[in-house]
């Protein structure tokens, strides 16, 4: 039986790597410092594997075949897939056994994720790992959620998937210590006339729901207001999945700030155990 030793969440954006200078140095260092501390907290809990919940930004999946959920079960993952991302090409270690186990376990709970035995992971997974200084340090299991092209899985479905995921991890006989990292959001908008908009009010209210441990309200609020927070805010699905895995324990926000120069509401934190 595995112990979920920590459950964390953070925003991601490729501009943190591609255009770091868009944000003045003191603010950039403050934000990168929070990512680094997130990585130190991950390492301090001594997990044997890291389950990374993220979205694929139309790299591994295209409109010809687009799963709502996908679990990776590969021994290694190349990254990044983007030829334009300012990050060294690398091969991340994977935990194929844990990935295969999670697929079977959540299938038995009534969910139907796709299987992938080969993914080239994008900035969504890689950026937090790089900024947290944990890239390559731990075998990962990527769990990909469609937040990028409607029809999207409902907010409630993502929370419920997270509950099943958490239960499955706790029942895993293969390891003792596992961490979950959700990567995505918060408010942002890409490639529309609203690009650059960050909805500070949406982000703070969503975080408040998580901090209160109120899953009903978090799901309701995200479902009803996501369109006010931009197409990138659809990525709060990852936060809801981690919230489910945490059995709706109260969230502790380590940092939040609307950072329009990076087009994104940047948040980091973890669920109290």
């Amino acid at each position, binding site marked *: 039986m595995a112990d979920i030793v920590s459950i964390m969440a953070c925003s991601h954006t*490729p501009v943190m790597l*591609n*255009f770091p200078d868009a944000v003045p140095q003191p603010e950039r260092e403050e934000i990168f410092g929070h990512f680094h501390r997130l990585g130190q907290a991950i390492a301090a809990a001594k997990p044997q594997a890291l389950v990374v919940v993220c979205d694929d*930004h*139309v*790299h591994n999946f*295209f*409109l010809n075949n687009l799963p709502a959920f996908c679990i990776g079960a590969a021994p290694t993952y190349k990254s990044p*897939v*983007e*030829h*334009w991302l300012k990050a060294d090409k690398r091969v991340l270690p994977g935990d194929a056994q844990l990935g295969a186990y999670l697929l079977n376990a959540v299938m038995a709970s009534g969910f139907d994720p796709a299987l992938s035995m080969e993914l080239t992971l994008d900035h969504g997974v890689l950026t937090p790992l790089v900024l947290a200084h944990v890239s390559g340090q731990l075998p990962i299991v990527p769990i990909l959620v469609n937040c*990028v*092209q*409607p*029809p999207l899985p409902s907010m409630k479905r993502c929370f419920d998937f997270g509950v099943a995921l958490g239960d499955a991890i706790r029942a895993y006989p293969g390891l003792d210590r596992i961490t979950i990292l959700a990567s995505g959001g918060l408010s942002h*908008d*890409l*490639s*529309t*006339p*609203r*690009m*650059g908009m960050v909805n500070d009010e949406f982000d703070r209210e969503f975080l408040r729901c998580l901090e209160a441990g109120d899953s009903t309200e978090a799901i309701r609020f995200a479902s009803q207001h*996501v*369109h*006010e927070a*931009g*197409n990138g*805010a*659809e990525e709060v699905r990852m936060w809801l999945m981690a919230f489910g895995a945490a059995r709706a324990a109260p969230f502790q926000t380590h940092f939040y700030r609307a950072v329009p120069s990076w087009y994104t509401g940047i948040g980091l934190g973890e669920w109290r155990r």
Partner: protein
Amino acid sequence: MSNWLQGMPTAEAYEMNKVLFELHHRPDDLEAFRVNPDQYLNRFSLTDPVRRAILGNDVAALYLAGANPYLLRAHCIGMKIPEAVSVGALKRLAGEH
């Protein structure tokens, strides 16, 4: 208000998105496009307006034709379209509506 211009991509948008996808994922496509963009685009069934929008890096037109936001964003960065140009073109649309 919706985050999505097209809840379901049109067939025209699908073909345009296919260009944006293949350009940045198939190993030789970006080079082939740079060498002869017209010839490269002949591989796809594009309408004339979409073809012109791709050739002219017309970010606003690509958006209006239903480009997936992530494919369009990746295309802008991958083609090194300056941020002021790509984001500016989109923001000008907001002013028009």
